[in-house]
């Protein structure tokens, strides 16, 4: 079926299934599928080290679907923290998901979209999926975006699930340096991907202030350090942005 396409759409799919498969393909071609694979080998190995079961850690990948939150969950619970402490730490790391979902939904939503169709993409939203969907989805007609986003996310999740299982089984045999290198994938890939997406002064300032305030507050043993670093750094960055905007 041939139909007229608006000039702004770089690519289109004949139906929803093709868009879903297109999303899977986009996932396989992006650097994040491989970064996630490495990250989740590290998470599987970490879970093994702290005596969690394979089913438990696999379920955590499906349900939590956020690398840092899973690292925090496994290391706090494994280190003997209370359930409430672990929940607060995980909750603080999850704050970043809210604005990602807020900014993604209007891009996926079309005039005929039912609300429940957005529930799955909302659960799938994580740094990797958000970065790639925000970049690629606007280039196609709106009715193809939800299956495409679900395709990207399933591709990433398949990579992460295989890696979780592989990491769990490899844990006992992995050299310490190799596991360390895998655990390092999360901070380094997140740092460069937020830097790539920070095109405005306010975002760059927020990144630098968070990097500085996070460890400073943590070393001073301030409670809820990550939350205060985020609110403080983000608000300061926003105020600087407003003052500069006021001058112009």
């Amino acid at each position, binding site marked *: 079926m041939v139909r007229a396409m608006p000039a702004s759409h770089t690519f289109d799919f004949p139906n929803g299934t093709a868009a879903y498969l297109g999303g899977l393909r986009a996932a396989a071609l992006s*650097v994040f599928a491989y*970064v996630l694979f490495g990250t989740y080998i590290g998470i599987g*190995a*970490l879970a093994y080290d702290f005596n*969690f079961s394979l089913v*438990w850690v696999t379920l955590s990948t499906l349900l939590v679907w956020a690398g*840092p939150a899973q690292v925090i969950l496994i290391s706090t*619970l494994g280190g003997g923290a209370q359930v409430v402490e*672990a*929940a*607060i730490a*995980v*909750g*603080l*790391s*999850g*704050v*970043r*998901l*809210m604005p*990602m*979902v*807020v900014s*993604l939904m*209007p891009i996926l939503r079309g005039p005929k979209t039912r609300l429940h169709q957005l529930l799955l993409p909302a*659960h799938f*939203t994580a*740094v990797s999926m958000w970065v790639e969907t925000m970049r690629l989805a606007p280039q196609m007609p709106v009715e193809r975006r939800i299956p495409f986003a679900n395709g990207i996310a399933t591709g990433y999740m398949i990579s992460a699930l295989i890696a979780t299982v592989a990491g769990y089984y490899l844990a006992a045999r992995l050299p310490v*340096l190799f*596991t*360390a*290198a895998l655990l*390092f994938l999360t*901070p*380094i890939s*997140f*740092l*460069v*991907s*937020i*830097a790539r997406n920070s095109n405005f002064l*306010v975002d760059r300032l*927020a*990144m*630098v202030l*968070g*990097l*500085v305030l*996070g*460890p400073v*507050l*943590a*070393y001073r043993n301030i409670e809820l*350090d*990550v939350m205060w*670093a*985020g*609110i403080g*750094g983000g608000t300061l960055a926003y105020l600087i*942005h407003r003052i500069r905007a006021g001058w112009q």
Partner: protein
Amino acid sequence: MSLTSSELWPYLVLVLAGFLPNEVWRWLGFALARGVDEGSEILVWVRAVATSVLAAVIAKLIFFAPGALASVPLSVRLVAIVAGFAGFIVFRRSVFAGVATGEAFLIVGALIFPT
């Protein structure tokens, strides 16, 4: 405690401490997205806070490294993250180049300066 509840306890903890505190932000974002205008000022501030939170999480993963990463000296971890960022800038803002450069510095650094 009965056998069944002690077997299910880790899964209950997964839901209470892992799934719910993380997922609630997605639900909140889902609810807020209905009325939010993409270009609104509040979204600029929310995004700045989120970026700062993520940056703070990254910095804490470097300074208070989990598991095996703690066996690499802090100085090596710091040099590696800075080198990775520099690699990202030098190689035309490529995420892959940044990750590869950072990892290379971490592994070589850890081999030269073992704890």
